[in-house]
């Protein structure tokens, strides 16, 4: 016999986390990492105990958005993520040192299992997951191993993005996963196309984050990020789901 032991301990590692929210999209480049990082910051500013897990293993970027560098987890009966800007932050980047990460699917699942088995989050009000795009290994593993996870879905106003996002929403609905709603990011017009498409799927449309030209300058600086119009828009959107 050969038995995978790590799956046995995951539930214990997550048991003191009140809510797990996976920020996902069917499409890349729609602003998932920005929404995930901003959501984690927003919750931390409101006094919640927050963790942020970057599961975009090929292109981790939450650490760039939040300006996290020269940090490393502490080893104590596992690994304890460092707390930065009030957020317990875990990412593959601690172990890849910004080098390219050519992983195959089986490796992705092994990495996720390892991270979930050895990370000691302690007690958290929220664990936010920055998901990679699509409905591949990472999404399936989050559904499989993080059974209480809820999904917050991000799209842009583009028909192209919504095409892929619809597929993600349909599979989440089919698997009966809770979907908190859809955020329309980087809007430039008053189009109601996304709102109508989301409503067809009987999912809550949460609102728009307008394209913010000043946002790029705030990347890497959590204090400046908190002051951006995009973050203010996000706060309004989040009120709809009591976050």
């Amino acid at each position, binding site marked *: 016999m050969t*038995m995978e*032991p790590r799956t*046995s301990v995951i539930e214990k590692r997550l048991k003191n986390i009140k809510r797990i929210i996976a920020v996902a999209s069917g499409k890349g480049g729609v602003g998932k990492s920005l929404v995930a990082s901003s959501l984690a910051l927003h919750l931390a500013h409101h006094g919640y105990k927050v963790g942020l897990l970057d599961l975009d293993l090929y292109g981790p970027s939450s650490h760039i958005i939040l300006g996290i560098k020269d940090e490393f987890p502490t080893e104590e009966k596992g690994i304890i993520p460092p707390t930065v800007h009030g957020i317990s932050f875990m990412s593959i980047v601690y172990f890849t040192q910004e080098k390219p990460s050519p992983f*195959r699917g089986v*490796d992705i699942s*092994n*990495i996720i299992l*390892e991270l979930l088995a*050895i990370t000691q989050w302690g007690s958290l009000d929220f664990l936010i997951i920055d998901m990679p795009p699509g409905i591949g290994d990472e999404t399936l593993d989050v559904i499989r191993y993080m059974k209480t996870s809820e999904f917050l879905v991000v799209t842009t106003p583009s028909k192209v993005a919504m095409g892929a996002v619809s597929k993600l929403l349909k599979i989440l609905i089919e698997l009966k996963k809770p979907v908190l709603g859809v955020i329309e990011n980087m809007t430039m017009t008053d189009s109601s196309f996304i709102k109508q498409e989301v409503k067809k799927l009987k999912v809550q449309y949460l609102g728009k984050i307008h394209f913010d030209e000043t946002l790029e300058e705030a990347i890497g600086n959590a204090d400046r990020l908190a002051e951006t119009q995009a973050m203010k828009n996000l706060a309004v959107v989040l009120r709809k789901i009591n976050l």
Partner: protein
Amino acid sequence: MHEWALAESIVMAAVETAQKENLKIITEVTVHIGELQQIEKEIFLFALNELAKSQKPKIKNDAFHLKIEKGTLTCKTCGHTWKYSDMKKKLNETESESIHFIPEVVFVHARCPKCGSPDFEITKGRGVTLTSIKGAR
């Protein structure tokens, strides 16, 4: 020590299996430790024995047997097979430490020594697996 977290997964998996099999006592648990994970055998055994106390079903003293599995890698591009112990000499301390935590980052920090491809696989010696449990009903 992150060995503790992996030891905990072994003990929990052994207990779950024993409960399914209605064992009253676990007498022997064999664990394979992949070379890539570079587990400190003494620390790991200490953690296993500490965690084994007060489990249900009971785990016999010194029930754990550890076997180190040598790491072997095979290139998907050129078919070359090599030993992790040979490759390890070329890794710096940070790279080696990173592989200790997450063995798959070997694909980030190393390349096939013959053709330079990052597209290789760990054919043996990845991580920690439970290979046998013995007990009495």
